[in-house]
């Protein structure tokens, strides 16, 4: 009932921890067996190790949080030697989040990381709002996004998903350019750019000043974008943004996502992913569905009546 098959990814269920919100899995493995997960999106990897931005790196907002980690990671070599081999003990596909400053950086990381035995797909991070070069710049320009996608597709040994930025006027335009460039899927959304000031100092709380807004606050923006993009492209979408419950996951499926990633909620409740997976069958049934695949895009597939109206 929960299985979903996507390019490169045979998911036993549609629930995947989102990149940057699950490290390389080690910490959460202390709470539960990671094999229960549909897949794992590991922290963004760059060719060289990065420290990221100065602290403070997080701030809280109404129903959300801002982060400006700045792609801190131990670098490609370390990820290949230590993190990925360690993750092999779990029966779940890894989606490697790939970042860089230039096309060449992305290519280098993609080429090598896509050859790791448990990496079943790449997620091109062209939407990180917290780095000065690369990241979001690629994600707001359709031509640049397409070129990067093409370049990475050439070197990748596994299907390539591209992660979209919500900080654009027209997300379907970018999505279509990326599809045309050969992407196998899309993941969306990354964070919205935001800021919070500390009234006591009069300055931004985050040392980086701006940060990426995530959590329940952004769910309506994410749902809208998944709804629009899923109707404009043929490739599958992994949806995310504010998912906290199985009901939220269902909302993303109905909007047009084929699988759902959970980010910030892992910080609030380390067990959130297995709990959603456990609840999902009941929630699907409650709303009249027999399987995940049946829900996908139901909000706009008007030719078919929702299951519980058939009877």
């Amino acid at each position, binding site marked *: 009932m929960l299985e979903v098959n996507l390019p490169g990814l045979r998911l036993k269920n549609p629930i995947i921890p989102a990149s940057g919100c699950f*490290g390389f899995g080690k910490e959460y493995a202390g709470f539960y067996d990671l094999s229960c997960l549909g897949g794992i999106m590991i922290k963004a990897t760059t060719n060289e190790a990065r420290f990221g931005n100065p602290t403070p790196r*997080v701030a809280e907002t109404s129903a959300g949080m801002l982060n400006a980690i700045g792609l801190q990671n131990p670098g490609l070599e370390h990820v290949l030697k230590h993190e990925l081999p360690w993750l092999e003990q779990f029966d779940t596909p890894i989606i490697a989040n790939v970042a860089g400053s230039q096309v060449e950086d992305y290519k280098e990381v993609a080429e090598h990381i896509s050859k790791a035995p448990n990496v079943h797909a790449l997620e091109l991070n062209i939407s990180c709002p917290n780095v000065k070069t690369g990241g979001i710049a690629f994600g707001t320009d359709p031509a640049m996004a397409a070129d990067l996608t093409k370049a990475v597709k050439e070197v990748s040994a596994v299907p390539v998903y591209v992660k979209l930025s919500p900080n654009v006027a027209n997300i379907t335009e970018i999505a279509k350019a990326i599809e045309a460039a050969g992407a196998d899927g899309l993941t969306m959304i990354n964070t919205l750019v935001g800021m919070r000031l500390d009234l006591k100092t009069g300055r931004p709380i985050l040392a980086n000043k701006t940060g990426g807004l995530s959590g329940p606050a952004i769910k309506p923006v994410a749902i809208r974008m998944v709804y629009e993009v899923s109707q404009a492209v043929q490739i599958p979408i992994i949806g995310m943004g504010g998912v906290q419950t199985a009901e939220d996951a269902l909302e993303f499926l109905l909007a047009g996502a084929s699988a759902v990633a959970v980010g910030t909620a892992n910080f609030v409740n380390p*067990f959130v992913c297995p709990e959603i997976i456990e609840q999902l069958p009941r929630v699907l049934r409650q709303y009249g569905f027999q399987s995940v695949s049946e829900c996908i895009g139901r909000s706009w597939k008007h030719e078919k009546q929702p299951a519980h109206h058939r009877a």
Partner: protein
Amino acid sequence: MKKAHLTVQSNSEIADQIYKMVLKGELVRHFTEPGQFLHLKVSDAVTPLLRRPLSIADVDFAVNEVSVIYRTDGEGTRLLSEKKEGSMIDVLGPLGNGFPVRRIEPGKTALLVGGGVGVPPLQELSKRLTEKGVNVIHVLGFQSAKDVFYEQECLAYGDTYVATADGTYGEKGFVTDIIREKQLEFDVLLSCGPTPMLKALKQQYGHKEVYLSMEERMGCGIGACFACVCRTGESDTSYVKVCLDGPVFKAEEVAL
């Protein structure tokens, strides 16, 4: 590292805007070192969204109780202060690595320096150290007379000096002034408090054995999000995570 609902046994104001809350539950059994902290969900609502880190001030294994002492600062701690006896709180913990009591030998003298809401973890630390036969001296720093707490508790274990920034209680000045003026002698220094204080201590006593408990804004509290990193100074990219590797570090492990 567990997640559980603990029961509020009591929750009351012990100084100006400073509250002490006692929590009870099985999770307490997992406590190992003074300086570890709890990550509390202060509300079931989506705002405040993130958990709040609070140091464990005191542990009573006999009855499975821990206490935390906190200042009502923003929305999260204000909501916490409204929790009634008998209510349940979703707690992750105990988290992190505390002060290394095991490494301090009996007969040695430990100087415990606390600033503001950095004072609480020193209580359990004092208890453990004295149990072990280590001599303890306390230096506590506060803003003003109305903020002072825990002086009595500390006196039970050893000499205790209090400094206030405005001189309305104890000595006027900072903890570092007291250490210098009173010419306090010690083998090891253990401290928890605001970063400027920790920095001053590291600068002046960094040649000695010094342990500092660090504070940083946190996301996950368990090492997954990279929010709470602190540079070690070794290389451009080397770091420790306050939540996972700390919050207590040897002074030389962290670049302040």
